[in-house]
């Protein structure tokens, strides 16, 4: 029961902390306006280069952009707390770690999904892209899974935030990799073999593929395998991230590095 409470309360606190950090003056430019412009940018570049349809870029970039809220928020939950020196207090608490860290992840996932969903909606309206209404619920599922998967990666960056100071650089670079490798803007078939191998293990790749098929009218059942793969990737990252967090935590206690910022 306590675990559940820690999960829920931790999540709530994380949520409030998240939105304190993400004041409207940051939220709106970064998470509402920017993704829409990214979509427009690549849609028009696509037109300029004589490539695929607008829908390709809308779906791809809407989902890829969720990397910003998912990675940044998750990293800041640790980086921010470290900054506020409360991490030490939390880590000496007897609270079981699993609900502690995962409780904090839930608002991040939900927020990330909202950002992607809004971007998708806005992009389709502005560019006049047709997506069947029947696809919307399935798309919601895919977006949620995508956000989960990237937040899993965020747990790893959050763990690294315990040791590295310039986490913003790290997350921005990850964002850049996700821009290139996930098929958000370049069809996977057009990438050389070694790059495709990398794509396969990154978040978003399978979700974007699934979302594109759904937008073209495919049924949810036909993309279940893609969704499953995305979920699996997310889980692997989450487990890795969690292990890394525990490892650094123990290391930090041993070498007194927890408060180093």
């Amino acid at each position, binding site marked *: 029961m306590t675990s559940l409470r820690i999960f829920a309360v931790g999540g709530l606190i994380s949520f409030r902390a998240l939105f304190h950090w993400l*004041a409207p*003056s*940051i939220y709106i*430019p*970064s998470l509402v*306006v*920017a993704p829409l*412009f*990214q979509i*427009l*940018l*690549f849609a*028009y*570049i*696509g*037109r*300029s*280069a*004589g*490539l695929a349809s607008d829908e390709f870029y809308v779906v791809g970039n809407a989902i890829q952009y969720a990397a910003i809220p998912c990675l940044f928020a998750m990293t800041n939950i640790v980086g921010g707390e470290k900054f506020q020196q409360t991490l030490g207090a939390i880590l000496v608490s007897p609270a079981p770690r699993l609900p502690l860290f995962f409780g904090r992840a839930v608002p991040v996932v939900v927020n990330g999904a909202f950002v992607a969903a809004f971007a998708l909606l806005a992009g389709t309206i502005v560019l006049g892209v047709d997506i069947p209404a029947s696809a919307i619920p399935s798309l919601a599922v895919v977006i949620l899974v995508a956000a989960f998967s990237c937040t899993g990666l965020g747990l790893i960056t959050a763990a690294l935030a315990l040791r590295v100071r*310039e986490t*913003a*650089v790290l997350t*921005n*670079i990850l*964002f*850049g*990799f996700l*821009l*290139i490798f996930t098929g958000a*803007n*370049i069809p996977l078939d*057009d*990438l050389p073999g070694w790059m495709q191998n990398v794509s396969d293990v990154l978040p978003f790749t399978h979700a974007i593929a699934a979302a594109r098929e759904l937008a073209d009218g495919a049924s949810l059942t036909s993309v279940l395998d893609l969704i499953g793969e995305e979920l699996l990737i997310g889980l692997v990252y989450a487990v890795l991230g969690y292990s890394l967090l525990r490892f650094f935590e123990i290391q930090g206690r041993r070498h007194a590095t927890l408060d180093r910022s």
Partner: protein
Amino acid sequence: MRTLRLLAVGWYYQFKAIARSPFEGLFQVIYPLFFATVAFLMFRAGTDQKTLLYASLGAAVMGMWSATSTTAAGAMQRERWHGTLEALVASPPHFALILLPITLAMSTVGVYCLVATLLFGRFLFGIDLTFEHPLLFALSIVGTVLSFGALGFLFAVTFVRFRAAWALGNLFEYPVWLIGGFLVPLVLLPEWVRPISWALAPTWGMNAIRESSLGGTPLPDLVVCLALGAVYLTIGILVLERVLAAARRRAALSLT
């Protein structure tokens, strides 16, 4: 004369301080390369060398703009964070003469971005660089840096009241890339967007650089680019007067 000296010396030391910071220096160069890679991969479908060079130049100027837009808006905030803002305001020169070198130093980092992107395109994607008007190419780069610095100055004074000034600066990264016609010919954009494009110095700087490489008439573009820069600077100075007066009244100079 003394004014020019002040600007030059200020620019020199501020550039030194910025370029030495890994976050503000090195990272500024690496980050736009991701977008350049996407652009190259997208344009590679058509193997026309001219198209690829078009993409390379566009991506290079995207990097230049990125260096300014992500940093300039937060220039005053950055000084405040260093604890140097008070010292700067309390010194005799008009604050514009102190702030402009800072934003110019930030936009000078853009030259690193430009060079890095062009080299990146050359060595990883085999894009050959041509310079139809080499002298004008160099001058266009200088002109673009100057006008970006002026635009950055305008951002810095306009967004100084906002705690998250950097977020607002970032807000202008994508739109200028798109509307400046760096990788998208303006003719593809809706008609109502074009006047906005024409009012942006980046659009003209891009044209000047592109035409001095691929061929065309870069000089008029360069002149318009610089003229717009002068306009931004003037507006910026007017805004600055009001901002500083308000800050001294509100005691907002040392708040972090």
